[in-house]
């Protein structure tokens, strides 16, 4: 198991290298010039050139890349052009905020998805299965900006139950309870689509396993139906489900842009959106890199879990072969 994870870790090095190249180049490919935004539309070419030199933007791209990578490897993400702050100080707290939203949404989505999926798979093609699948089809495809507004309209404006925006109360706010109250609505909005996707994959994967011969053998052994669902079917159905769950978490960690904007959630998606508008290259690069890193870590975790679930990999590790 450890060996397997070590092998995967080595494989992530070229992935991360590729990611760094793409992240670096994409920020430079974006149209628009930071100097126009900083110095204004009527700035002379001389002023603009001075600004470029001060940010090192006049050098050749490969030189800029090597310098940037060198700094990144030392933990230096550079300085934001737009607000003169350390990119790391800007991006990491925002990423933590996004992680709070993403992880709680993912947890909610997994719980709902698993229950709904197993419920539907246990009674395939029945009326209740069709209801569950119909609802997931609708909710799963509902645009989050629409769903978010609907939720705010209902819960915050009509019922006046929860705060509509932000992460904490400006006056006398703070504390876990306050954050939780602010979290509920964006969490519901972001959890909707992944919950439906997880429910559908759980159902499909379970149904496939339930038609396997070994499930019939388990039934012929007189194993209770609930136990067959939980032990025999779910355990075998897990690998594709884990993969989808990881993918969904990866997307969520990428910053749920619409939801963060609607609910004014101070997350990394929000930050990235502002940086792109300001052509703030170091911040764009830093934020994108953090998101990409999160994605790589989640994928690594998915691989590790699936390896753990597969007795062939576990057993070969035990035997010392690989």
């Amino acid at each position, binding site marked *: 198991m450890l060996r397997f994870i070590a092998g995967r870790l080595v494989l992530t090095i070229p992935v991360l290298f590729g990611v760094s190249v793409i992240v670096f180049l994409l920020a430079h490919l974006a149209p628009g010039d930071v100097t126009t935004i900083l110095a204004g539309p009527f700035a002379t070419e001389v002023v603009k050139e001075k600004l470029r030199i001060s940010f090192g933007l006049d050098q050749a791209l490969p030189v800029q890349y090597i310098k940037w990578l060198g700094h990144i490897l030392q933990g230096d993400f550079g300085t934001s052009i737009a607000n003169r702050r350390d990119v790391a100080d800007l991006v990491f707290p925002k990423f933590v905020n996004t992680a709070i939203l993403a992880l709680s949404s993912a947890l909610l989505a997994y719980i709902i998805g698993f229950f709904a999926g197993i419920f539907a798979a246990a009674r395939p093609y029945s009326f209740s299965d069709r209801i569950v699948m119909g609802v997931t089809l609708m909710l799963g495809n509902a645009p989050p900006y629409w769903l978010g507004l609907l939720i705010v309209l209902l819960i915050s404006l009509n019922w006046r139950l929860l705060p509509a925006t932000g992460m904490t109360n400006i006056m006398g706010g703070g504390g876990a309870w306050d954050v939780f109250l602010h979290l509920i609505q964006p969490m519901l909005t972001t959890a909707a689509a992944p919950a439906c996707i997880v429910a559908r994959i759980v159902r499909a994967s379970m149904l496939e396993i339930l038609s396997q011969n070994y499930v019939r053998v388990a039934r012929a052994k007189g*194993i209770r139906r609930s136990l067959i669902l939980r032990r025999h079917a779910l355990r075998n159905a897990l690998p594709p489900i884990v993969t989808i769950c990881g993918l969904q978490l990866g997307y969520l960690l990428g910053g749920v842009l619409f939801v963060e904007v609607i609910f004014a959630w101070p997350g990394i998606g929000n930050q990235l959106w502002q940086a792109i508008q300001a052509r703030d290259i170091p911040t764009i690069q830093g934020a994108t890199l953090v998101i990409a890193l999160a994605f790589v870590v989640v994928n690594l975790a998915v691989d590790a879990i699936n390896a753990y679930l597969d007795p062939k990999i576990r057993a070969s590790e035990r035997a010392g072969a690989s």
Partner: protein
Amino acid sequence: MVEPILTVEGLKTHFMLREGMLKAVDGISFSLAPDEVLCIVGESGSGKSVTAQSILRLIDPPGHIVDGHIRYRDKDLLALSEREMEKIRGDRIGMIFQDPMTSLNPVFTIGEQIAEGLREHLDLGKKQAQDRAVELLRSVGIPHPEERYKDYPHHFSGGMRQRVLIAAAIACEPDILIADEPTTALDVTIQAQILKLLADVQRRLNSALILITHDLGVVASMADRVLVMYAGEMVEYGDVKTIFEQPKHPYTIGLMNSVIRLDDERDDELRSIPGTPLVPINPPPGCAFRSRCEAALAACATEKSRAHSVADGHLVSCHLIPRSGDNDS
């Protein structure tokens, strides 16, 4: 006459398909004495497996048992709740399936898969169930059972897996064992070993055995009685000697003629039955075998023959065969 342990009467299992109603099993009746070996023979698609799975009520939609009675001791199996049926499966009636390669759950050790049934039915603790499972593995001829207990199915060959599945099926010492073509997926040399193991197990447990096969050699060596099926229906039913020496139904006769015998002195070609079996989806009226039957009468096209007795315990469904007296079943 001993009281039968299992009685099946007029069993009908139909599948509602888009193409129409598939009458996979359409009126099968037989009874099983407590230590009897019954072989069900017939071509692929004749309803042998569906009959076996119907006894344990393992038929899934679109299939349904639409008519008949299945009586085990004093219980009507078709009237039991699903929970009560779960207590019979694996405990009083054990089943072995066709394909050992896909019949074991790949993510659990084989030991766990045997112990599971023991814990479900006999209420054994973890350790007791484990010890008993090791004994069972030893009894079906798995070498080093203590170590193999912890191995996963992918460490086992097909023959070894079928041994494991036999161990799981006999774990609770059932009264009835159902083996649905247990050797079809195996090498010829392994087939003989598995059949010998099945015969040993049946004798040791003193249980009844329903063996589904299309190997008439196996039937001759193992069966007490034989049920011949064609297109979901019973064509002939009797003790093994009668079926082999005095088959009455044209289909059974055809089957017997298509067997290669070592002591055969004929020079002519092996005879086969012309045509292909009827798929019983919305079947036409009359005898299902008539299109392949050389001796078909006018009545065969319009009316099915009911199973009737031609001698004591020998039933045939055919218009060509006269009833013996009036004691039809």
